[in-house]
């Protein structure tokens, strides 16, 4: 148990209190064993594992394409980003090229996913300090985006949308018809959120200067994503190690100055606005063309071929019976997920199933740093600090 060196107030007896695993502030699944001196946290131990679902073991027993639905459920607030990360890793293994249109489509849906992730996180942070209304408005905005993704992928949350060599289906016309209207609605909700929270002293008092982690400590802990950027380090994989077509798009990387909950909140807010701008640019630039490039080792041929030719049918059967068979080798591919660097490390032994599939979840590092962030703060601070790290059980514990 990590302890602080603070002397006990009044020499009172400390109180041990278990927070979680089922506690409104723990998002369901983490346990904090805390020791309190009055209301001040003096020691914390984080226990995780309440949502361990054996993701990596499941991957070893599944073919490459069967893993895609599992990745949906890693970070279940921004599933498409996981899809994209995993597919990029497998495509790297294969050496596949993805059609330009599919890449743009991935960027568009990926950024929609990022917005929905940040909406949930910021809304939940509002809820945890008592601003329930803001949370419900943010969830309402998220609903607008989910309708959009549903239009493309056929599911609200667990999309299973990317394939090796492209996407399962193309962006339909209805999607583009709805998009601009929905983005406007989301912007309106964000604007309301700004008015409700951003200048409210009560909210600012709750989040300012709590959970501070310096830039150096954050880097030592391996922070990435909004948590790192809030400390002032402009590290964003979309720029640092560009993938897809992010090099063709303009956006700014928001950074904070202090590295407290408040900076994280602001960075996420600004990122949503940047994502909206990225989506607008991508929609203007998206080329015509195919959404899927067939490679016979990777995934199914076009249905026309399957129905019409014996070679197509054999390819189809082979890839399903044996799975996609990438060459032997190992790759690491990381993308900027909702929470930070979401990396997939794949080892292929040339068979249809991954020999090893390891995920680098961004929020594992955040949770490891939790004791350092919490100790010395009040009980009431646990909640907004915990909310600001956006712990997602699915990717934390896999």
């Amino acid at each position, binding site marked *: 148990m990590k302890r602080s060196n603070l002397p006990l107030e009044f020499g009172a007896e400390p109180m041990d209190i278990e927070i979680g695993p089922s506690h409104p502030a723990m998002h369901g*699944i983490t346990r904090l064993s805390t020791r309190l001196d009055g209301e001040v946290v003096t020691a914390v131990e984080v226990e995780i594992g309440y949502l361990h679902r054996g993701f990596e073991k499941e991957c070893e027993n599944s073919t490459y394409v069967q893993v895609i*639905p599992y990745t949906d459920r890693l970070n279940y607030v921004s599933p498409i980003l996981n899809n994209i990360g995993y597919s990029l890793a497998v495509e790297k293994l294969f050496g596949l090229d993805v059609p330009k249109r599919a890449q743009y489509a991935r960027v568009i849906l990926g950024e929609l996913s990022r917005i929905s992730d940040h909406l949930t996180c910021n809304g939940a942070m509002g809820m945890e300090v008592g601003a329930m209304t803001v949370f419900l408005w943010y969830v309402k905005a998220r609903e607008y985006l989910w309708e959009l993704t549903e239009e493309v992928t056929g599911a609200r949350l667990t999309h299973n949308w990317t394939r090796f060599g492209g996407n399962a289906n193309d962006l339909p016309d209805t999607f583009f018809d709805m998009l601009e209207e929905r983005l406007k609605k989301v912007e309106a909700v964000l604007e309301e959120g700004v008015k409700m929270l951003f200048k409210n002293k009560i909210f600012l008092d709750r989040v300012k200067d709590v959970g501070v982690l310096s830039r150096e400590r954050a880097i030592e802990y391996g922070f990435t994503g909004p948590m790192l950027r809030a400390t002032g380090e402009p590290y964003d994989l979309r720029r640092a190690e560009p993938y897809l077509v992010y090099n063709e798009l303009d956006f700014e990387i928001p950074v904070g100055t202090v590295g407290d909950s408040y900076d994280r909140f602001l960075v996420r807010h600004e990122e949503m606005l940047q994502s909206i701008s990225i989506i607008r640019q991508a929609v203007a630039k998206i080329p015509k063309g195919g959404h899927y490039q067939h490679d016979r080792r990777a995934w199914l041929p076009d249905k026309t071929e399957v129905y019409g030719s014996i070679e197509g049918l054999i390819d189809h059967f082979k890839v399903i019976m044996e799975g996609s068979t990438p060459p032997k080798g190992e790759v690491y591919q990381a993308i900027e997920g909702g929470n930070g660097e979401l990396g997939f490390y794949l080892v292929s032994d040339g068979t249809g199933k991954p020999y090893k599939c390891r995920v680098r979840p961004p929020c594992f590092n955040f949770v490891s740093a939790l004791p350092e962030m919490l100790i010395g703060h009040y009980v009431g601070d646990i909640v907004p600090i915990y909310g600001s790290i956006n712990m997602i059980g699915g990717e934390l514990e896999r």
Partner: protein
Amino acid sequence: MGVKTKAPAIEQGAFFTTRLDAVLNWARKYSLFQYPFATACCGMEFMATAASHYDQARFGAEIPRFSPRQSDVLWVAGTINHKMAPIVKRVHEQMAHPKWVIAFGACASSGGFYQNYAVVQGLDRVIPVDVYIGGCPPRPEAVLDGLIALQDLIQTRGPTGHTGINPRQTKEVLLLSRQ
């Protein structure tokens, strides 16, 4: 596997329902305080159901009470693994009678596609379940249908719900032995 038919309808004669019971059950079904035991992805859809677009509150199932004493219905939304199972059981035991349980989504109902060492293959191996909602995760519409199904159950069966452990009537391939 043989042909399955629909679940047998609840036998009307088997339960002697008086007028008073009907009124009491009516009250129970429109005042369902909930304990959202949200662990995973389904929790997101639970939020969506409670939020403005679907507004679960219309059915009187508002007010998430995180104290098991004060809640009537336990929504188990998300995967329950072996580490979490005792906690669900404990929360269920702490709930004041009458209480009901809704298994929300594939993972809670049956383990979903996590058929491995970590995951409990269905919540009904740990606590009795009154309503199952299929889907991964279920759409909010499905959730509301589940809630309506629970309300119907309360109206017809009264406070007991499904007594005892639900018989596992599916002939699924069990990868794990019973816990």
